[in-house]
């Protein structure tokens, strides 16, 4: 943002550094106003001197001596980034970045490193971002040698111990499970995904499945591919003598000579605009968190300075911006609302307006925001606004140099991204030249409200006016987290053949494949004893299936529940508390029911969408592309199913043990089974009647009582 970048101090001195005129008699302090103040010039800025050189192995080094405090710190910047992660291993860079540090080295375990570093209050941390990676250290001067040695060890010979990988994967499973808990991060995340495309390297996110795919071997391969001397810029600053530090670094890295091809180019950002409103429903919040915008630009765009000025006036400069004045000060509708022209060094950034307001005022707030966008696109800003925006940047320019580390960091960053060393000064020159006409021109050219994507996370039931009243197509965002795919035992031609044999044996035992294939619809009535309730609770249930439709009725002491699923996500549910559309978890349960329907399940070897794999002498696992699975264990004597394991409610593993097999219309079916969920007895089911091919109709199944 602009507080980081500004106009030359020189300009600032010219504007404000005139010798104060002979002072009038100053009014008493209480009467004085700002106009009475005269500011002297700032002392001349001394830019710290950075020593740069390249080691024989190709690593570029930057040194900056600074003896203010007894501290030394450094950072290696590595040309890597999560945009290079394979799609099916999204998250690889996150795992790599952390385990590089925690997973130990060839000579020390991660725990030993932790004890050593924390014992001397030193820090080494590693991180991989979108398009660059870093590993840095920070230590008291007295421990510089030891910390540098350790830093090099971690950088060059990491061990990626499996236990630390496992711990971190478990942590990330938790991160995935928790990603819908806080509304503001949901809004940011979904906006970014829409901006860059949810399947592109710039927009995709880690899922349980991609996390599972990451192996220790991947981490070693990652390290080999990206962590080599010529791919690294190393900067060190603090309490040392430059010559001595140079000698130390040359010696330290003399034996690290590995070479690799340069890092691959970045994938392009190709996403098209996705105009419209996208609503993520979250009923436990009373504010709507919104993001509004489209793709933006890069720092080397010719209009970048004018865009920053425009954005500062619109919403980028805090309290003084138009958005804050309008939505916060004028209307009292938000604690914060801001805009960002988030230009990036090496790829297209975003333009985004963010804020939150109470549910009721969602549409009013977004309207007010859109009004401000329209205003800056249609009328020139005032002289005063332009002056304030420019002066703020010019006068705060000195903060770009208030610590030597900022100067060093900037130098390395510009080098890394291939920007000129004086980029900041070029920017300041461009900024000083920006006119009101420029601001209007870039607002018109670069802000395209007709292409705006609106992401709103909130409770639509409490909106005073619905989002539709903004005249935008409203689409729902499904926040459902894709289930972790179960680790499946490896399948080979042999195990698949044996799986088919076992299933064919079952088909014969129950009456033949032909009988099973002839089943068009299927129903059963059962008595149920729920064992999870203390003392047990009795219920009756009726299940009727006409694939892919399922109707299910359960009568409990306190009332009846009736569910109809059309097999495509639609349907309804009617319970003691009223009727409504099917909640997602019930849709899933209905689909599970369909997947497990006996006759079709037992013919899975004839279904091209399913895989039947022998995983034991008398056990097969049946899976489909949708992540459904069931394991059937056969009685070796009868060939009938003795037991099954499957995904139960809440993903806990469930088990059913079958008995009382009797023939119904030429097919042997179990009339009694018990279910355990998560190892605990859950229900006993006794079938009172099976009905096969009774000409069920969709109308019958879908009819509401």
């Amino acid at each position, binding site marked *: 943002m602009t507080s980081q970048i500004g106009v030359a101090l020189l300009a600032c001195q010219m504007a404000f550094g005139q010798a104060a005129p002979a002072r009038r008699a100053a009014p008493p302090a209480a009467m004085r106003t700002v106009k009475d103040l005269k500011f002297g010039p700032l002392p001349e800025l001394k830019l710290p001197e950075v020593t740069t050189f390249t080691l024989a192995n190709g690593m570029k080094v930057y040194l900056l001596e600074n003896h203010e405090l007894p501290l030394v710190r450094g950072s290696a910047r590595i040309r890597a980034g999560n945009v290079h992660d394979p799609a099916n291993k999204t998250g690889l860079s996150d795992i790599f970045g952390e385990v590089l540090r925690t997973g130990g080295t060839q000579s020390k375990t991660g725990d030993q490193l932790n004890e*050593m570093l924390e014992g001397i209050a030193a820090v080494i941390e590693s991180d991989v971002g979108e398009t660059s990676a870093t590993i840095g250290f920070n230590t008291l001067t007295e421990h510089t040698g030891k910390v540098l040695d350790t830093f090099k060890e971690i950088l060059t010979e990491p061990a990626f111990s499996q236990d630390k990988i496992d711990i971190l994967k478990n942590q990330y499973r938790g991160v995935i499970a928790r990603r819908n808990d806080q509304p503001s991060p949901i809004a940011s995340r979904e906006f970014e995904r829409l901006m860059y495309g949810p399947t592109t390297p710039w927009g995709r996110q880690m899922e349980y499945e991609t996390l599972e795919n990451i192996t220790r071997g991947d981490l070693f391969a990652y390290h080999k591919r990206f962590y080599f001397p010529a791919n690294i810029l190393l900067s060190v600053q603090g309490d040392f003598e430059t010559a001595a530090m140079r000698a130390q670094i040359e010696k330290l890295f003399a034996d690290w000579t590995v070479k690799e091809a340069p890092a691959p180019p970045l994938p392009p950002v190709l996403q098209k605009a996705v105009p419209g409103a996208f609503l993520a429903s979250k009923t436990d919040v009373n504010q709507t968190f919104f993001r509004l915008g489209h793709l933006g630009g890069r720092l080397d765009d010719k209009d970048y300075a004018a865009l920053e000025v425009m954005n500062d006036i619109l919403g980028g400069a805090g309290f003084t911006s138009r958005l804050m*004045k309008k939505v916060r000060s004028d209307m009292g509708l938000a604690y914060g609302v801001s805009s960002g022209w988030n230009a990036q060094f090496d790829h297209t950034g975003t333009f985004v307006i963010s804020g939150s307001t109470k549910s009721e005022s969602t549409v009013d707030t977004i309207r007010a925001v859109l009004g401000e966008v329209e205003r800056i696109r249609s009328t020139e800003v005032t002289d005063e606004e332009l002056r304030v925006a420019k002066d703020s940047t010019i006068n705060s320019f000195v903060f770009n140099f208030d610590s030597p580390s900022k100067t060093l960091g900037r130098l390395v960053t510009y080098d890394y991204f291939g920007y000129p060393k004086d980029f900041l000064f070029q920017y300041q020159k461009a900024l000083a030249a920006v006119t009101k006409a420029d601001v209007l021109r870039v607002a018109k050219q670069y802000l395209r409200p007709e292409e705006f994507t609106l992401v709103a996370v909130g409770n639509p039931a409490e909106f005073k006016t619905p989002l539709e009243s903004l005249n935008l197509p409203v689409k729902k965002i499904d926040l459902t987290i894709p289930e972790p795919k179960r680790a499946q035992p490896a399948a080979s031609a042999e195990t698949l053949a044996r799986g088919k044999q076992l299933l064919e044996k079952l088909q014969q035992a129950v009456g033949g494949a032909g009988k099973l294939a002839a089943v068009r619809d299927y129903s059963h009535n059962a008595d149920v004893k729920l064992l999870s309730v203390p003392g047990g609770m009795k219920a009756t249930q009726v299940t009727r299936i006409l694939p892919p439709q399922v109707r299910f009725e359960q009568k409990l002491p306190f009332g009846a529940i009736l569910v109809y699923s059309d097999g495509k996500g639609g349907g309804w549910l009617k319970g003691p508390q009223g009727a409504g559309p099917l909640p997602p978890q019930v849709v899933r349960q209905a689909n599970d029911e369909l997947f497990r329907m006996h006759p079709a399940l037992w013919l899975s070897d004839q279904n091209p969408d399913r895989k039947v794999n022998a995983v034991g002498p008398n056990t097969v696992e049946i899976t489909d592309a949708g992540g459904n699975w069931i394991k059937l264990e056969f009685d070796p004597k009868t060939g009938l199913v003795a037991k099954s394991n499957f995904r139960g409610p809440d993903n806990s593993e469930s088990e059913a043990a079958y008995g009382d097999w009797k023939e119904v219309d030429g097919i042997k079916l179990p009339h009694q089974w018990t279910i355990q969920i998560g190892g605990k007895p859950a229900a006993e089911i006794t079938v009172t009647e099976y009905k096969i091919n009774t000409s069920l109709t969709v109308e019958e199944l879908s009819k509401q009582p």
Partner: protein
Amino acid sequence: MHWTWIGRLAPAILSAVLAAQDLKEFEKKITEFSLPNGLHFIVLRRPLAPVVSMVTYVNVGSANDTSGKTGLAHMLEHMAFKGTDSLGTSNWLEEKKTLASIEQIYDKLEAERNKGPRGSKEAAAKLEADLKAAIEKANGFVVKEAYSTLIQENGGVGMNAGTSVDSTTYFYSLPSNRLELWFLLTSKVFRQPVMREFYKERDVVREERRMRIESSAQGKMQETLQMSAFLAHPQRTLIGFSSDIEGLRAKDSEAFFRQHYVPSNMVMVLAGDVDPVKARALAATYFSSLPTGPTPPRVTTEEPKQEGERRITIETPSQPLIFFGYKRPAASHPDDAALNVLANALSSGRTGTLYKELVEQKKISLAALASPNFASQKYPGLFMFLAAPSPGKTIDENEKAILEIVERVKKEKYGEEVLSRVKNQVRAGLVRGLESNFGMAIQLASNYMLYGDWRRMFTAIQEIEKVTAEDVRRVAETHFVEAQKSAVFTKAPAAKKEESK
């Protein structure tokens, strides 16, 4: 593995000496003085770059809110950047009249509402309409954000303010040649704040509460923990209860200001490229006329003794979390240093006991942390623990695992290498903190106000150096008492019957 010995070989004395040296060096850079009206200044000269950070620290926080007016200290904090009688207005005389009329109408409205069922709805509705009109009229005189604009265009950065249970702070940084601007504006605001846009700002604060507390499971848990641990002491809520916020008045805010913002109850710190002689002269010029007032009353309510564990649940669809804390004395208590060492040993970095056992060994937590003083240092508060269970792991398992550690640290002493590590970390933390003007300014101010001397920043380290393993065990045994524990857990909302097929 010679390096694992370092912690044991570096005797604590070495660090103690260094801390003392640090203090001696540091003292040379500090100038402090009080004006005759009692306003205290601390100036840290650090001429590394021509910038300066300014912190105004007022010894008043949400604990000073009175019943029915919770949120007032925070609300007043929001008013500080609204301008002065000459900045932010197009016509102060008229604006002032209108602001007064708002209060008169509001008084009448309150009087009508106070009648309860015997009041007149029509009269109240009429007054409400008058009130709205008067507020709109006053807004007509406002020059929006004039104060923040002035600071920004002069190159000011990081302008903000914060309220805690203990204190209210106001801060920003300027190029050093513009320091006088801070003197001018701050002296005006603290001589005569204006309650400009008070009722719009009240809506903003209400939105802030929605954002921080009502739309956040963690926010709800934090506030609930405070409320369940403290039934009497006014640290139950920081931002204030919704209905209290919605009823706050400009005149309350002004009275609160008059009572608490007296010179002897504030300290101002300047850190950076500042000439202490000039600073002193400017301080005298601008702040001498701040009127003195009686020293504000201290909070006298003490929390009654807790007679048993308190366990509260919060229903939320969010993933599970547990927060719990034990009552502990204020930071001025002699046990403070040992409690800090204990919190570090339990919770710092990747070697802390909680991380090693719950995250790494048992793999039952995503995060498990301890904090020595939540949410106050000035008053008795809580030694807090929090944990986020791993997928498939429960709150119960997490609580049990933490309690096992709690029982262990009450019985067994930590090893010397752990103590040495913690002490090294604390000392290094102090050195690292010296790199930031703003960070230093805050530290100097809070140490001065909480302990009467900024040197406490350094002497606290000497206190930490003296802590023994037995001290750590003893304070755990003394303060980790079940009857003094309050715990807040999340719980999934009772599943709707339709959904529990």
